[in-house]
């Protein structure tokens, strides 16, 4: 008799999709906790192999977690210290040039629209350039009055919860294994082996997703920085890293990243729109590389979900929880799918349920032996 691999049916999948959407709706309400938790999870899975290596060298979990945390904080501190002058120069250049970049971008857009009007009669008749520039001008003029105070308040409210990230990451590193033990101890004997398998799969899915996400970000950042440097755009590394991180938000993040790159390219080379077009082409090229080569090789491997369902769930995530939903939906779907599939395998197995009932009957008989007449 050979064990057959369980395949989740439509009922389990319906449950998985519904649970994912419900969790997204709940998470949106406690976003101040969910986002630091998510970033802490990324940090945890990044440094977990180091801790595991130390544990396998004979150190206790606590000592390994402390050593790894101290090491990482020291490295980060040194990196920040060393890169502070460069980073502050880059940021102050971007800050002082903020208005300049906006102007450059608007000029590029106006030139492009004027070119369109000159080439196509319908565009000239519709006065596309004038309409678009008027709309953008109105938005920019009212943006500060409408949104700046809210944005400043939100940033102030978010700052303390972001301080939770290193805290959460440290405790995950130190006590994560205890928590898994604690969970597995609550599982009845009949389901124990399968549940260990479940915990291992959840762990592997989350780990490969977050580690894949970091690899994807590094690949994106390197490709974009290299391309921007080649076409002569300023601050290529900073722009590459910023756009690669923005790409964590499906669709919206990519558009924002592209916009950022075009603004800088158009401002750096006001007389030659070809640089801005080259930046757009580079961006599209990297996105295609990302979607067809990098993503399947990094993040895609971790989610055993059909690509069509993945895309539909991204839209559903956006509809249920907005931009945070777009970020959270894929890792959540991957983990809920693994849990749903394994719970389906455990709970729909009549033999395991029968063994559990038998074990309960044995226990009942044992504890009531002296009570029977």
């Amino acid at each position, binding site marked *: *008799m*050979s*064990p057959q691999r369980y395949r989740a049916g439509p009922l389990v999948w319906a449950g998985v999709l519904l649970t994912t959407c419900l969790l997204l709706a709940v998470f949106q309400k406690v976003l101040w906790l969910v986002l630091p938790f998510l970033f802490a999870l990324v940090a945890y899975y990044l440094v977990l192999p180091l801790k*595991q*290596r130390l*544990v*396998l060298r*004979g150190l206790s*979990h606590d000592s390994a977690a402390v050593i790894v945390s101290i090491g990482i904080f020291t490295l980060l501190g040194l990196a920040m210290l060393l890169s502070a002058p460069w980073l502050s120069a880059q940021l102050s250049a971007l800050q002082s040039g903020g208005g300049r970049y906006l102007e450059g971008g608007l000029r590029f857009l106006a030139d492009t629209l004027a070119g369109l009007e000159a080439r196509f009669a319908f565009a000239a008749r519709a006065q596309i350039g004038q309409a678009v520039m008027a709309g953008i001008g109105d938005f920019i003029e009212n943006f500060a009055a409408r949104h700046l105070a809210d944005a400043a308040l939100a940033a102030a409210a978010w700052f303390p919860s972001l301080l939770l990230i290193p805290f959460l990451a440290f405790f995950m590193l*130190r*006590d994560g*294994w*205890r*928590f898994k*033990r*604690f969970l*597995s*101890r609550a599982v009845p*004997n*009949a389901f*124990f*082996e*399968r549940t*260990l*398998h479940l915990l*291992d799969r959840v762990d*592997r899915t989350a780990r490969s997703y977050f580690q894949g996400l970091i690899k994807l970000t590094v690949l994106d950042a390197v490709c974009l920085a290299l391309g921007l440097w080649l076409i002569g755009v300023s601050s290529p590394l900073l722009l590459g890293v910023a756009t690669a991180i923005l790409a964590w938000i499906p669709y919206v993040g990519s558009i924002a990243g592209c916009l950022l790159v075009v603004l800088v390219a158009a401002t750096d080379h006001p007389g030659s729109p070809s640089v801005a077009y080259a930046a757009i082409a580079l961006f599209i090229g990297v996105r295609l590389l990302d979607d067809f080569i990098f993503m399947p090789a990094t993040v895609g491997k971790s989610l055993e979900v059909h690509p069509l369902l993945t895309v539909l769930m991204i839209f559903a995530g956006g509809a249920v929880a907005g931009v945070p939903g777009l970020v959270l939906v894929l890792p959540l779907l991957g983990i809920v799918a693994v849990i749903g599939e394994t719970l389906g395998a455990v709970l729909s197995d009549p*033999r395991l349920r029968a*063994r559990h009932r*038998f*074990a309960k009957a*044995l*226990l009942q008989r*044992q504890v009531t032996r002296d009570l029977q007449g």
Partner: protein
Amino acid sequence: MFRLFNTSRPSALLQQLGGLSLFSELSPRELKIVAALVHQRRMLAGEVIFDEGEEGQAIYFILAGQVTICRQGEAERPIAVLEAGQVFGELALIDGGPRSAQARAASDCELGVMFRGDFFNLMESHALIATRISFGLARHYASIVRRLAAGGAQP
């Protein structure tokens, strides 16, 4: 608060693991590494540990009590009765095949369970422990072969 998750008795477990034939060659430091990967379960007499044909995800160590190995549905005619200190379930773990027989607790017993992923992770990342456990397993199989050759039951 995290003492909530930490209810194990590591020193007792270390002693019990040190008494296992598979780990007899390991140093106390190496035993500590192994112990961190072992889950403890208590079984009642008669309880099924795993069924024949099931996918094997773990290796079991008998820390206390007895376990019978039998064909499915033939519990009254055991193939072998295993005692504290012995190992079972390793065959399916090594060859990735289904469990070749059913395991049931013959008495109330305490088992150590090591999950497949943890076992292979340990073997891949710690050469010395891997060598010693491999020798332990080889000795275990050699004793089975000798017993079979002498016409005895397989433990």
